[in-house]
Structure formats: C-alpha cells, structure tokens
C-alpha cells in the first residue's frame, strides 16, 4: 500500500514537473511549483520524514509561493518563447542524468535496512539520544544538539537572506500622515475573508507556539514555528492591509528580533563555553547533563524561531512595499 502511494505521488510529481517546463504563464508555473512542493511534502511523510514534510509544506508551499507571487506582482507574469532550441541544454541535462543513474547502480536498494547509511552513525542517534539528550524526537536531538552548529549556520543563513532582501529592496515606511483606513493594500471587497482572518489569527499564533514548544515530542520546532508565525503575519497583512501590520510589527522591531534570535543562539553556545564546556555543549548549562541539554535546546529553538519569524516577515515586507516605493 505504502509503495503504491509512493509510486502515485512520484508520478504526480513527474506530471507537475513536466507541466512546469512546458507552461509559459509564470503565474501558473508558480502555482504548479506550489503543488510540486506540496506533493514532495506528502512523499516525505510517506518516507517517514515528518519534520522535513512539515518544513517543506510551510516553506516551499507557503513562504516560497507567497514570495514568488509577490515578486511576480512586481514584474511580468508571462514568459517569452525561447528564441532558440535549447538542444545544448538538453544534452547537458541528459548527460548529467545518465551519470547520476550510473552512480545509483551501486547504491543499496531503496528501503534496504542493511545499507551502510543506517549502520555507522545513525544507530547512536536512535539508541542513545534519549539517554544523552532527552527528546523523543530524534530529529530535534540531532538538529539542536548533535549537529547544533549546522543549525546555527542555518539560522544565520535565513538571517542573511532577510538582510539581503532588505538591502536590495529596502523597506520604506510611507505611512507618514496617511491614516490606516485609506490603505489600498487591504482586501476591501472581501468582507468574509477579512472577518474569517480576524477569527483565525489567534489560533494560528497559538498553533505556532504549540509547534515551537512541542517540537521535542512531535514534528516541529523553532524553524517551523517561526514560519507559521510569519504566515500568520503575512495573512494579516494580505487581508487587513500592510500598514496596519507594519504598525503592529514595525521594521525596527523585527530587525532587532532577528538579531536577537541569532545572538540568543550564539549566546547559548558562549554560555556553555563560559561554564567550561565546548561551544554549544549544553550539558554544562544545567545541574545534570540532561537538564542542561533540555535548557539548551529550549533556548536554541527559541532563537531559531524568533530569527526565522522576523526574517521571513521582513522579506515579505520588502516585497510588499516595493511596488509603490
């Protein structure tokens, strides 16, 4: 049964990918890309990667699509016919693909439990992480502790993206004397949508908090929570007008928040050094190693969540304010 679902999803993915190559309307290509990432997220679930699916759905389908639409809104929405037949490209792609297929010949079969990948490093994570670190979600343990440094870099990556987008597009608060009610960006004609949004927003934020603090036990964690929080803010801005949102979450505040998140993560690592451990060694933070790990992971996830939320929202602001700037 699982195999069948797997194959069906892969087929759908192929159809979507081919449609994306053929279709000329960028608007539709973006929507199909959204479907593609939704489908791949389903595939991740069927291949047991629930955390990845969570992130892919929130990021690939949610944020990336919104950003693409916003960018499309700032430019053309139709692709020109390529002036030449891209035969060379086809050749390059076929060669690369052939090399890769050749490379998979010696790979262990899909789902093979005896593959080397499952036998060297991974078993320790599964067998000992609960004694060494605590959370039942192994992914959280690895992400925040065993490979916590990668996650610090990841946080800085998203922070950098936020900075870059702001540096490139700039955010100008044009509110000035204008009152909020004249904001044209609000979806005035959609009363139902506006009411529903107001109704749902508290629950979205609540859900974000749940994901943030429940990440130890189920799928989720700081990154996903940050994205959900940002989605909430984006929904708010889309329906109720961006000036109102900007008033609730000013740019300066978000910048400080993004910075604070990175510094919180780095600071947790430094605190471990002050207490005599290595960088990011949370064990020394608490009375016992487990308590220390717990505290460390909590702080670190909080830092990730805050930075991701602030950076994503800043990026969205930058795109949303560009048009009339």
């Amino acid at each position, binding site marked *: 049964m699982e195999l069948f679902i797997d194959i069906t999803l892969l087929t759908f993915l192929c159809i979507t990918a081919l449609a994306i190559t053929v279709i000329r309307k960028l608007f539709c290509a973006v929507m199909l890309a959204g479907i593609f990432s939704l489908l791949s997220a389903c595939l991740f679930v069927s291949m047991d990667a629930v955390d990845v699916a969570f992130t892919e759905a929130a990021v690939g389908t949610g944020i990336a699509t919104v950003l693409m639409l916003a960018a499309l809104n700032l430019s053309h929405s139709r692709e020109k016919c390529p002036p030449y037949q891209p035969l060379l490209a086809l050749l390059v792609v076929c060669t690369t693909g052939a090399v890769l297929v*050749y490379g998979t010949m010696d790979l262990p079969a899909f789902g093979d439990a005896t593959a080397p990948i499952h036998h060297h490093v991974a078993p320790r994570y599964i067998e000992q992480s609960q004694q060494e670190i605590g959370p039942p979600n192994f992914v959280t343990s690895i992400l925040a502790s065993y490979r916590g*440094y990668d996650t610090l870099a990841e946080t800085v990556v998203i922070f950098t993206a936020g900075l870059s987008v702001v540096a490139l597009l700039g955010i100008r608060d044009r509110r000035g004397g204008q009152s909020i009610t004249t904001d044209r960006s609000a979806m005035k004609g959609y009363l139902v949508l506006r009411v529903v949004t107001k109704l749902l927003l508290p629950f979205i934020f609540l859900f974000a908090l749940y994901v943030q603090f429940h990440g130890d036990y189920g799928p989720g964690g700081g990154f996903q929570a940050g994205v959900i929080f940002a989605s909430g803010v984006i929904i708010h801005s889309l329906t109720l007008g961006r000036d109102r949102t900007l008033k609730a979450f000013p740019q300066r505040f978000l910048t400080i928040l993004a910075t604070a998140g990175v510094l919180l993560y780095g600071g947790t690592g430094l605190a471990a050094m002050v207490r005599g451990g290595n960088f990011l060694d949370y064990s020394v933070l608490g009375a016992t190693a487990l308590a220390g790990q717990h505290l460390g992971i909590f702080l670190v996830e909080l830092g990730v969540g805050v930075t991701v939320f602030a950076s994503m929202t800043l990026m969205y602001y930058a795109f949303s304010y560009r048009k009339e700037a």
Partner: protein
Amino acid sequence: MIHLPHLAHLAIWQVLFPLLAAPLCLLLRSGRLAWLIATLASWASLAVSVLLLRTINCNGPLTYNLGGWPAPWGITYHVDALSAFVLLIVSAMAALVMPYAAKSVSREIDVENHRLFYALLLICQAGLLGIVVTGDAFNMYVFLELSSLSSYALIALGKRRRALTAAFQYLVMGTIGATFILIGIGLLYSLTGTLNIQDLAVRIALIPTSAVGHRTLITAFAFLTVGFSLKLALFPLHLWLPNAYTYAPSVVTTFLAATATKVAVYMLLRFSFSILGSRFVFEQLTLGKIMLLPSLAAIIIASLVAIFQYDIKRMLAYSSIAQIGYMTLGISLNSHTGLMAGILHMFNHALMKGALFMVMGAVSYRVGSVYLNDFRGLGRRMPWTMAAFVIGGLSLMGVPLTAGFISKWFLIEAALETGWWSITAVILLGSLLAVIYIWRVVETAYFNPLQEIEDDEHTEAPASLLIPLWILIGANIYFGIDTSVPVDMASWAASALLEGTMR
C-alpha cells in the same frame, strides 16, 4: 592581544568573531559604529588565525568537538596545515579590507545600507572561514551557502544596474554548483554512513572496489568536482566571474577575488586528497589529466581575453581566471612540487589580486570609474596608487623579487619534473600575456597626456585606502624576497595532503 578563555577554543573563535559581530552591526544605529565593530572583529579573527597557525606548527593538527560530541556523531572542527594556511589568507585579507572599506564604502554604497553591508561582509567572511576550518562535509556545504548567499547580495549592491544581473547569474550558477556538491556529499554519505571528513576517508578506503572502480564513488566525485569547479570558476565554468567582479563594489571585489576562489580550491583539495586519497583520484580517476586541459586553456584564453578589455576591473577579473588556471595546473601535475606551487599561488594570488583590486577601488574613489581612458595621467595625479599598481602588476607577471615569481618558479619546476615542455611554454606565455595587459594600463597612466585641467578632485587617494594597499604591496615584495615562511607552509601542507591523512 585579545583575551581568550584558553587555547583549546581557538578554532571556534576563528568563525565566531565575524559570525556574531554581524548581528551586532545591525543593532547599531550608525554605519560608522558598524564599521568599527566589523574591523575589530576581522582583526580579532586575524589574531586567532595567527595563533592557530603557531599552535599547529608546535602541536600538530587541532580538533575541536562542537557541542562536545565526538567525531562521527557531532560536528568537529579540524585544523591542519593546509586549513591553517588558507585561514590565514582569508582572515588577513578581511583584516586589510575592513579598514579600506571605510572610505570606499561611503562613496559606493547608499548610507542606509552601510550597516547591512558590513553585516553581510562579516557573514561572508565567517562563511569562508567556516568552510576551511570545519571537519564535516555537510557543515562545509552549509557554510559554503552562507558565504555564497551573502556574496550574491554584496555583488548586487554595486552602483551600476549590471551588478544586479551579474549577481543573478552568479546566484544561478553558484546554486547549481552547490546543489551538485550536495548531491556528491549525499552519495558519499550513502556509501559510508558518515559525514566527518576523516571518518569518510577511513570508510571509503574500506569499500571494496571492483576493477572498474565503484560506480557511485566515481559519480560522487564527478559531481563534487563539477560543483567545486563552478565555484572556483575553472575555465569553461567561469562565466559568472567576470561580470560579478566587474560590477561589485570595489571592497567586495577585492575581498572575493582574494579569498572566495581560494576557498573553493581548498574544498577541491580537501575532497580529492583528504577524503578520496590522492592515489584514487589521480590514478583511478585521472583527475590530473581531466584538469590539465581546462587549466591550460584558462591560462591562455582568459589572458588573451583580458588584453582586449577596456574596463580594467573586468581585465583583472579575466586575469583572475587565468591565475586560477595556474593553481589548478599545479594541482593537476600530481607531484609534491606542483601541489606546493598551487597552494603557494593561492597565497600569492591573494596578495597581488587583493592589491590590484584595491588600486581599482582607489581609482574609482577619485575618478569614478575604471575604464582605460580614466587612467590617463593618473601616474602623476595618484603617484602612490599607480606605483602600487605597477608593483602589483609586476608580481602578477611573475617578475623576480615579487611574490608572483616564487609560485611561477615552483610551477615551472614542477612542469619540468614531469618533462612536459609544452606546459612550461604555456606558463611562460601566460606571463607574457600578463605583461601585455598590465602594460596597457601602465602606458596609459604614465605616458598618455594629462586630461584637460587638473582639478582638486583628482588627487591622491586618502590614506585609509593607501595604507592597506601598501601593506599588501609590501607583502608582495617581502614574500618575494624572504620566501621561507609561505614556501615552508605550502610544502608542509602539500606533503600532508599527499600522505592522504589530515596530519
């Protein structure tokens, strides 16, 4: 001297200084303060890298377990001779570029972006340092992306609109390269179940290989090589480089030209020697022969193209591609001398290209642009700047008593060892072509009549631009005369690499 808790943490401080200074830059209200923080952080980072080099000289390679988790399970930092050497190059360049940036950035970047600019520059530096210092393959990928992402934005901050398209082109090609690297790492991981570089080396050696070699291993290596070649702008994959270097702000060009490609070369060396082992790479996969042709083509074609450029920054960018050809040529000769020459050239090229691009920054600070015509009469107006250009140019050509000579010398020696006269001829031809393109600028600057009236605007560049520039020029001369330090380092790093272990 900065107070460090104890020497054991040196490796992590190397990256932490710039990485954590970057968010601090944003918190400050003024660009000046951000610059101060950035400069201090880069100097601290330089101090750390010097200390690291000394520590490794005395005690051998250094390992640092991040998060306290031992090697295959956690991420470790591993610093050996080669990485310490590259770390020194990167952090020294950053430490020189930061003071230089103060004036140049105020002229070239909008005021409201100053803080962001310094933050991005610091992140770029942290990314490059992180690549070099880490002992974990995936961590290397993450830091690679960190440095690339910030460099895309930095390039796009250039004044002209073509900076945007250049940055976009770099973004697309860089991301393709990074994805190839990701595929390569994934395949290696699937074969061994580990991501730690030393552990990878051990476990790959255990894989039973048939007569044709292990297919997955070969594919992984092919993808890694293509990915790194994209990042280091090896000849047919160099298309992103000229535009990116031409249209980026001067400071960014200086920093990236002196460091980014070197770090890509470092990654190539690390993967092919430390993980796969020189015997496998050269004897089974014949990397030497594969790399030889693009390297030679890069030296000749890129130098030829450079001769016909009127934008001098673009000319130097093409010259960079040619110089990268020298580095990969050294690697592809597959001998101790060749490898050493390649590593040495990384260092020397950073010195000379850093200096030359700093000259471009100084000229564009005073004149506004760096077309060949703008150089007319500059020999008299900006004597110090142009003198620096001449010396840097001599070093680029490989004239004796400059740093460039030393690496070319070893390169020729390595070529002679293999007995291929044609390679020697190509190296000499490359130098000859360098003479031509440098001479065009020198001729315009010194022998063409002055432009119209001499106004006050066009005088010597300010001291804050000249001092870092002349430090680099001094280094070019010093390391051309007293060669012992870099040559010893390079030789040590090369023998460590050839032994296939991370000593």
